[in-house]
């Protein structure tokens, strides 16, 4: 028997996916905020990709001024609530807290951040006043952290903004891709509603931009275009049997799970391929959905995994078994997946090599590939003059996020190749300033 029973209702699902950073109550927030030292040139700010003035917002919580605290947060990061919950704070702000040097528990910055922004979201108070329109129009492709952040900032700078989103909800991976124990759908979408009410940009949902004709229309209609559509589907790993039923990508699995919750049927035996954070999420989630045996298979050693230690610990904590130095050779099964044939690997002269004769088979009902997402190269080719690097990432100016085609700007995963929500949010905001600078020349 697994630790988790397959959830059969929304409340059982919530129970299996209990929030790892639950909201603080007033008392906890008061005590925790009292501990902040208000460091000068605070290392937490420097560790935050969006440079939130953390000591200030904590001090504002402590002086019982949560709305000003929320404003301090949103002044630097429009995904303030979401980032408080989903950021890997252990390696960012909280990892930099000076208390760590004293072997004292660092300030729970992420949870304090969500505490303050939750107050603002619930109050639905207008924290910002928009300037009158400057008459210039910007199209944004993709309503994820980069796109939405860019939209908010552009509205603050007087631009008219239309966002084109292929899916039916905004916030991008925050609602479609993050593990459900980090943030609930409602939490993510409540913040989106709050931002939309506040900044009054227009989102066109279920409106994928995919044809040359659509792109030409955008180019005609708008003064600038932001590419914020992130990455594409999970890439093929080119092994035999990959096309079999029940072999699919991790991002596709997480998206389905986020949208259908307890109605997602996860079988008893699952193998997850990969060693990044998405692999950890997919493995953890399978276990929490009631899978009895979840194997995480990574072709290199444990230390070389891209995932954060605490993410692997989370997976291990729910019974996921890691096997290392194994490479998949073939997905087995007759139409449907029945197992994976692996071969053991070793590093020889710095190169990963298979060990001849070490093949073995692990049976399973599902194979989840967390082996990286493809870049949206086809789409990018339709936009003339945009250059991409060898890894398919869009090349931009590091300050303005302008692409080689001056009309286009880009931010988020399409540029970075895949980072945290906070990185995309910070870049989207910078891109807005780049757009403004470029259009006011």
């Amino acid at each position, binding site marked *: 028997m697994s630790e988790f029973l397959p959830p059969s209702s929304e409340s059982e699902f919530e129970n299996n996916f209990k929030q790892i950073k639950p909201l603080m109550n007033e008392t906890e927030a008061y005590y925790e905020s009292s*501990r902040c030292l208000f460091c000068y040139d605070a290392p937490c700010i420097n560790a935050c990709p969006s440079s939130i003035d953390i000591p200030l917002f904590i001090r504002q919580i402590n002086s019982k001024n949560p709305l000003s605290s929320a404003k301090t947060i949103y002044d630097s990061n429009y995904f303030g609530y979401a980032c408080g919950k989903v950021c890997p704070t252990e390696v960012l702000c909280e990892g930099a807290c000076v208390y760590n040097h004293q072997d004292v528990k660092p300030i729970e910055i992420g949870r304090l951040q969500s505490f303050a922004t939750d107050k603002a979201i619930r109050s639905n108070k207008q924290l910002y006043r928009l300037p009158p329109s400057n008459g210039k129009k910007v199209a944004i492709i993709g309503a994820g952290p980069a796109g939405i952040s860019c939209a908010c900032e552009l509205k603050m700078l007087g631009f008219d903004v239309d966002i084109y989103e292929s899916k039916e909800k905004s916030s991008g991976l925050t609602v479609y891709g993050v593990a459900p124990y980090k943030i609930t759908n409602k939490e993510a979408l409540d913040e989106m509603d709050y931002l939309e009410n506040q900044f009054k940009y227009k989102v066109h949902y279920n409106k994928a931009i995919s044809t040359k004709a659509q792109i030409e229309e955008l180019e005609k209609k708008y003064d600038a275009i932001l590419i914020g559509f992130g990455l594409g589907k999970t890439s093929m790993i080119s092994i035999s049997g990959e096309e079999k039923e029940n072999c699919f990508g991790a991002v596709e699995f997480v998206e389905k799970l986020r949208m259908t919750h307890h109605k997602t049927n996860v079988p008893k035996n699952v193998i997850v391929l990969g060693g990044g954070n998405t692999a950890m999420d997919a493995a953890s989630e399978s276990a929490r959905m009631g899978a009895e045996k979840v194997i995480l298979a990574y072709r290199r050693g444990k230390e070389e995994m891209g995932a954060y230690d605490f993410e692997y610990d989370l997976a291990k904590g729910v019974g996921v078994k890691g096997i290392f130095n194994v490479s998949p050779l073939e997905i087995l099964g007759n139409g449907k997946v029945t197992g994976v044939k692996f071969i053991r690997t070793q590093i020889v002269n710095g190169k990963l090599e298979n060990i001849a004769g070490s093949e073995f088979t692990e049976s399973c009902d599902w194979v989840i590939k967390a082996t990286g997402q493809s870049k949206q190269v086809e789409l990018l080719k339709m936009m003339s003059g945009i250059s991409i690097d060898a890894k398919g990432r869009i090349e931009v100016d590091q300050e303005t996020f302008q692409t080689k085609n001056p009309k286009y700007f880009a931010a988020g995963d399409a540029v970075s190749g895949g980072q945290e929500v906070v990185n995309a949010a910070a870049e989207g905001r910078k891109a807005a300033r780049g757009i403004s600078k470029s259009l006011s020349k």
Partner: protein
Amino acid sequence: MADLRSNLAGIKSPNPFWLASAPPTNSGYQIMKAFDAGWGGAVWKTLGVPVVNVSSRYGALNYRDNRMVGFNNIELITDRPLADNLREIEEVKKRFPDHAIIASLMVETREQWHQIVKDAENAGADGLELNFGCPHGMCERGMGSAVGQEPKVLKMIVEWVKEVAKVPVIVKLTPNISDITRPAMAAREGGGDAISLINTIQSIVGVDIDNFVPYPVVDGKSTNGGYCGPAVKPIAMNMLKNCAQHPNINLPISGIGGIENWRDAVEFILLGATNVQVCTAVMHFGFGIIREMKAGLENYMDEKGFKTLDDFRGKALPNIMHWEDLNLKYKVVANINEEKCIGCQLCYTACEDGAHQAIGLSSDPLNRIPHIIEENCVGCNLCSLVCPVEDCIEMERRDDGKQEITWKDRTLAGNIPTTFDDELAGGRHHWVPEPEAALVTPKPVHYRG
């Protein structure tokens, strides 16, 4: 949007947050940095004949994990030459013409006062603050609090200053006196334009119990210092109230004493302060705290619909009466929210040992939630104050709100206790346990023996 601009007796500043005359205002460098960070004004570290200071000058009162809830210093006025300070005043004023620079002054003779007033004005000071407050070192030389404690001398020196001063004169008062309104009145009679309070309180902040010497230690010895920081705020606010309510003082007041965040500032303004001065919090956390203070004050004013500081200045004063004017019919009792209670029983022991034995425990040892014995509860608040859970113990009103009788009313009606065993004694019909009951009241295991 709230307008934070402030005007104290004609001294204008973009906001009511000034740095108090103290180490943070020792130099033009510090003050420029503060103005750049957002402070509205600064009272320069007291000018006079430069002093010589000792080494090790500060001591602190820590409370549990909170450092510097009280702060004590034995530093004297400026130890820098007057010419240097004046030149820097001029420089800062040139760079920040809309910010307020006030020269704090402390000298001895009439001639020195005349000279230094003119010097400070020539350097561009927007106002003068006469330091009659310093309770350590300078007072031994007949200055500082030695002046503030003698209303006649204080008045005379204010008159000397007013003989030549062209800019507004603020008189800074010492709290080391039994009735703050007496020096405040003297300041008014001498022609002062405003008062500021409080300066520091004479203190011994702590004693090194291994070496038998108080802090701060100067070569094995110590002396009393001046006490400030969050711990002195209640004393400062009471003195502020006394001056603000006084019918004849009628001077604008710059409030000082333990101000650290926007809430403190609002409290001072509600008690009649025109602006506030801050020192200890800056010495602890730096000029950056102004961000929290300004945003908080602005947000408060917007929420309350106050457009200017005048809209709420002194708004709490009409609600501060004499004890004899309070309504004796008003009755509150404590109520414990069982859902929120975490079972620490601090309220029980506080009431049982420290108040009126109005809280009981369950006879079931597994039920840790105390209950209020309402007929014993006098509504003192103690349990709600010690309770560690927000809004768990709340005081609920029990009178119908229709009756009002004050001590004054009862005195006039001859309805007050006058003899030692009077029938009218307030506690006469209130239950008090028999002394012997103390020994049979159940106690926790670890209390015995």
